[in-house]
């Protein structure tokens, strides 16, 4: 799992790449949590390059959602590939995580 972080004020745009599974989730969770603790309580997760999300990945997204919520911020995902979008739909995560088609739409959601 590769992460590219672009931080502006209280918003961090995290472009992830690879598989968000049992192997990649712990690092993803730790790094994103650190961003929130550093003050970026608005997290935009760009999943354009994420090909797969496992249940462990969903769990780490859930943890992040709770983390930003307790930090008084918000979280949004954008540019999901169809397979990942299906996982979000099946698991019902689309009910609790705001999903956007692209970064601009996601930034709107975070305002």
């Amino acid at each position: 799992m590769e992460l590219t972080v672009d931080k502006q004020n209280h918003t961090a745009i995290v472009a992830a790449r690879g598989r968000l599974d049992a192997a990649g989730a712990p690092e993803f969770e730790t790094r994103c949590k650190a961003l929130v603790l550093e003050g970026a309580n608005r997290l935009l997760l760009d999943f354009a390059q994420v090909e797969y999300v496992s249940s462990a990945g969903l769990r780490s997204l859930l943890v992040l959602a709770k983390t930003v919520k307790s930090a008084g911020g918000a979280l949004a995902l954008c540019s999901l590939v169809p397979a990942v979008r299906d996982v979000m739909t099946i698991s019902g995560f689309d009910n609790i995580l705001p999903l956007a088609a692209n970064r601009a739409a996601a930034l709107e959601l975070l305002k």
Partner: protein
Amino acid sequence: MKLLNWYRRQTVRRKIFLPFFAITLLSSTLFTVYGFIQNVRAIENEIDKRLLIAALTMPQLLPTDYFDRVQNPDSITEEEHWANTRRLELFLSNVGGTYLYALHRESNRYYFVASAALDTPYWTEYEKPAPNIYEVQKTWEVNISTTPDPDYGLLRSVVMGHKDAAGRRFIVGADIHAYEVEALKRRAFLNFFLMGFASFLLAVVFSYVASYTITQPLIRLSNFTRRLVESDFSAATRLDAALFPDGNQTKAETAILAYDFDRMQANLAEHIEQLKFTQSARERAESELRIAGQIQETFLPGPFAPTEFGGRVQLQAIMKTAKQAGGDLFDYFALDDAHLFFAIGDVSGKGMPAAMFMSAVVVLLRSAAKQWREPAEILRHVNDDLAIRNESCTFVTLFAGILDVRTGETVFANGGHNPPRLRTAAGAVAAVPTKTNMVVGAMDGRTFARETLALRPGDTLVLYTDGVTEAFDENDKLYGEERMDRCLGALPAEASAAEVLQGVVADVAAFAGAREQSDDITMLVLRYEPAGPKPS
């Protein structure tokens, strides 16, 4: 080449000692031989010089007119002759020589007219002259030679002419026995040989001791290493610290080697200790996981009896755990004579946490099912029970259903789980349409949609976890829903629940090939049978 190979195989000590030995032997021999030869020459020169001096000095030791007075056997008195003889004898003994004499030639006969020999009277005939006596008369020049005398043996001899006032020629000679010269040479040889041998011996002893001193630490180190290896690195003894008295603050390579070796042994011992500890910790963890897996299995229901519900339901389930204990689960039991509860689920994550969570889910699910008998309500209660104080955010995807065996009417609710497959009696395969709901345990206060499905006799419901569809092959490709659907469709229409289950499991195994199973593979297959005469 052969010698070089032989040399390579020798010990370090021999490698140092042997060349040293050879060089010392050679140089000592050369020194002895060269010195001896030089000395022999010096001895010969010295002797020749002495004989020459003796021969030249002799006429001066006699009265000035002595040779003039030598005329006949009576021209010199016996008294004078013996006086001369004593003087010459004294001189010769100081100079070092055997014979000193003057010869007078008359009618091809030779007579001693003066001599250092106390047994030779005046005018004694020299009966068998040595060859050099004739030789000197050819040119009257000084003749130095080694000459064989018929009576006196081999001689080193100097002979020369001497003229008296009247111009008569006498022969003056000085001799030494050749064996005396040889004795001198032998003594010289012995001296040089002893000196050479002593220096050789000294050098050999020195090189032997030096090779020992140099190689001793290496030999000790090597022996120690062997002991260490033979004892599986568990030797409690450490290297003798005397091998590196100054630690690594030295230029002595062997001491540095020993010092580094000692540190390496310390590190090695520590690492082995650590390794053993880690090994046992891992073994303990692995055995705990195995036990956890066994405990987990006890939460799963036993085989479904085919006679239940009058044979109207066939039910087969399987859970093939991956190496790590996982969080998959399935459950089924009769709520009453006509209602069958069944469920499948997948806990997020793997290993011990997932296994523990799974146990809690099974217990909650079973009690909620008995209490509420309504899938949507069951999931709602399980969700709330799990979500409260769920700090780890672990959740479970759950599909739960209740089949009315009399009508085939199935009520179900889906908490974020993969939609099951419905295989109709005709062999058509399709995903069961389900509303999307949140996974179970992630967030409390959520509700789940109540949905229904009408099963017709001959229909088969296939519930599975993503361990099936997300099995990888050796090229990292996913098994996928499509492949599963094709597999289900290809099975014969009358395939029993067991045959359907085995068909898919075999297909997945064939697909994965040598690739290790990464996730639990769990399936529950339910076939609804037509009502008929009870099997007798």
